[in-house]
């Protein structure tokens, strides 16, 4: 398209040298914009630290309260520990997801994003990666505490980290979509958990079962079905969110 205005052309036109492969450039441009959104979210959070501090405190409180509320002995720790871990992750993550699109709504910056010449899915992936990073940062702090409080072996850490990563991807994947859905509703703080938790039951259930299996030292074959279920739901949720996000954020 050549604008009819003679003297003014978008600055962007100069970015397309003839020598570069346009398809390759578009692909790089897509990831460049995804990273720009992630970087913007991290910069904004580092300025205020509002979301991360709330998530940290909340997750630590959950671990502490459950630790004292239940009579944790070696024989019942493995039964309760997986649930405690995922309650802490899910509820702290919910705080983060709730804030994720609020910062886009306050001054209409979501409209600013939607005005940019970028595929809507890039906005979704940018927000999704940001959410995963914020939740993962909280997990880096609570996992060692979880191991210590429940007197678990450090040998389980690599497998546990793998399950936590898979669970977090599924949780943030669908959570990012729902967070965008409720942004214009009045009761969004209440609506988000009500909508999100029933949908992510398969992710939480398989993550809890896998965590229990790891703590009990079960062989992979015994928990293979839960692992398959978790990976399958991660992929399904991501695909659905990828398809639906454009319709969710547009009028």
């Amino acid at each position, binding site marked *: *398209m050549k*604008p009819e205005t003679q003297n003014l052309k978008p600055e962007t036109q100069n970015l397309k040298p003839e020598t570069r492969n346009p398809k390759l450039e578009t692909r790089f441009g897509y990831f460049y914009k995804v990273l720009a959104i992630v970087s*913007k979210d991290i*910069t904004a959070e580092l300025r205020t630290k509002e979301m991360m501090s709330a998530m940290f405190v909340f997750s630590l409180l959950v671990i502490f309260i459950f630790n004292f509320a239940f009579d944790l002995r070696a024989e019942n720790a493995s039964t309760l520990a997986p649930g405690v871990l995922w309650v802490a992750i899910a509820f702290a993550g919910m705080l983060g997801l709730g804030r994720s699109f609020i910062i886009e709504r*306050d*001054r209409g910056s979501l409209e600013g994003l939607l*005005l940019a010449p970028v595929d809507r899915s890039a906005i979704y992936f940018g927000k999704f990666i940001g959410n995963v990073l914020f939740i993962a940062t909280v997990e880096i702090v609570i996992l060692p505490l979880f191991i210590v409080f429940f007197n678990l072996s450090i040998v389980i850490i690599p497998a546990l980290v793998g399950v936590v990563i898979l669970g977090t991807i599924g949780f943030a994947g669908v959570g990012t979509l729902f967070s965008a859905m409720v942004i214009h509703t009045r009761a969004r703080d209440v609506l988000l958990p009500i909508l999100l938790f029933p949908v992510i039951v398969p992710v939480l259930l398989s993550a809890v079962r896998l965590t229990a299996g790891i703590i009990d030292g079960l062989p992979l074959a015994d928990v293979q079905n839960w692992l398959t279920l978790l990976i399958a739901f991660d992929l399904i949720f991501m695909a659905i969110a990828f398809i639906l996000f454009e319709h969710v954020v547009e009028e």
Partner: protein
Amino acid sequence: MIKVRKLVKAFGSRIVLRGLNLDIAPGEFITLMGANGAGKTTLMNIISTLGKATAGQVMISGIDLSESAAHIRRYIGLVSHKTLLYDDLSAEQNLRFYAKMYDVPQPQARIETVVQQVGLWGRQKDPVRTYSRGMQQRLAIARAILHNPPILLLDEPDTGLDQYAADMLGDLLAAVDTGKRTVLMTSHNLERGLSLGNRVLILMNGKIGYDVRREDVSIEEVRQVYFEQLKR
């Protein structure tokens, strides 16, 4: 440059735009007026690709908006009621982010240029939340012209500005080369709208009910038509 044909927009059973037709030539500065709820912002949203028409067609430089919205967004800058900025980021960080989203080449040089144009040089590293409303609106204009769009949409750009800042708006728009761009501005301020625009439109019953070139009309005549419309 902009052609709108038989544009209809309905929100449920409420029809806001009823077969609106409009032609805007390159370089025109159009002031669009109308009562609250007349559909000014709705029209702006559709042209800016933020909203979708119920029926009808919007063409920009011969390209149908419904087919190439993502591409056409490069050619449009929007200043709306909201600033579309991130309060916790500095002006420079906001503009750098949008420069990435619009693939602006040599972003640092361009950011410095627009910051100077809107008179915020020296404050560009301060968080936006420390800015006055007038400064935020200046930055919103800088954001809108960052990618040097040939089309500029100004949706009540004087909203929330004090008298001095609103009076400065004309100078500010002149500073960002609106004379070379095609501008569509909505406003409730008759004097300001007439002083800035070279064509005046009034939305009536979901259509352009009044369309006149600035030099062909007196402010009294426009005022009479406008206030009659407001009374209805």
